């Protein structure tokens, strides 16, 4: 009887000891995932946006209010689609969460404004186009990697191609495929500093193909950038509306 009592007491003691150890171990295991999830989440939040990519904002409705500042002072209303029937897009210069500072397709070149993030959908592109006026050359970059380069024609002395930062506003396939605009034309967000209107339009700049390939590599245009039809077709197949374009040199 006493032996049985002793055995029972010993078994109970052992069980209690084991319970304590298991409980202690499980509490240690439970803590680990919590700490791990927290640090992983923080890492995602702190991860900086890649400097090589650009954000493109597409207007959701038929118009959008552009503000002069984030305090909500309305500056202007811009309609969508644009004059060519393409969805209105902006190149995002600063993303501050609820507010986006965007490059505007208006005069003077380089104008910026603030829009509400809820009024647009956002897309991203790693592509950008650089035009070197002095070298008569364009280069398309995918991130830091040059993926296409070729010769260009730029504006004549009296109607120069203005340097600056722009973006594609629409892609047009000209009705006249044998005409001066070649196979395709990408409208730009910038305007000629000299021509306030041209051919019924507002003096808007563009990158387009040509029916005079011999003029490429010279100053030949009224401000537009001309490239070969092969190059503009490649751009039409690979670059999005909103892709940044930098004219320099």
């Amino acid at each position, binding site marked *: 009887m006493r032996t049985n009592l002793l055995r029972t007491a010993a078994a109970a003691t052992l069980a209690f000891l084991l319970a304590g150890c298991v409980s*202690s171990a499980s509490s240690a295991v439970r803590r680990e995932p919590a700490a791990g999830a927290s640090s992983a*989440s923080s890492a995602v939040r702190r991860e900086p946006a890649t400097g090589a990519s650009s954000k493109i904002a597409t207007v959701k409705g038929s118009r959008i209010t552009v503000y002069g500042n984030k305090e909500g002072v309305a500056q202007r209303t811009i309609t969508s689609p644009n004059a060519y029937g393409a969805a209105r897009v902006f190149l995002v210069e600063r993303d501050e969460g609820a507010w986006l500072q965007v490059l505007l397709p208006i005069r003077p070149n380089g104008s910026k404004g603030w829009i509400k993030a809820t009024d647009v959908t956002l897309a991203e592109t790693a592509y950008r186009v650089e035009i070197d006026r002095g070298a008569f050359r364009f280069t398309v970059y995918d991130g830091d990697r040059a993926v296409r380069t070729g010769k260009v024609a730029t504006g004549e002395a009296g109607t120069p191609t203005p340097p600056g930062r722009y973006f594609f506003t629409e892609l047009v396939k000209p009705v006249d495929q044998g005409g001066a605009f070649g196979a395709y034309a990408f409208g730009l967000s910038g305007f000629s500093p000299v021509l306030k209107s041209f051919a019924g339009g507002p003096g808007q700049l563009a990158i387009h193909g040509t029916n005079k390939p011999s003029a490429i590599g010279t100053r030949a245009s*009224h401000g537009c950038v001309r490239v070969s039809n092969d190059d503009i077709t490649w751009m039409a197949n690979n670059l999005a509306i909103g892709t940044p374009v930098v004219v320099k040199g």
Partner: protein
Amino acid sequence: MKIKATLVGISAVLALTAGLAGFSGTATADPTKPSASPAASPAAAPADQRPTVKTTAGPEPVVARPAYTG
């Protein structure tokens, strides 16, 4: 016999102490959880977490008569 009873008593007290220490480990681990969860709050960085679509292909062209500077 008394020695045996004493030994059993001591071991029972030791076991009880060890067991309680084990259980109390859970209680001290729990309060660390709330401090971890606020750090994972999604409202802290809306710009970084907003979904964006990666553009891959070219857009559908508009067939028109262009009026650019040419």
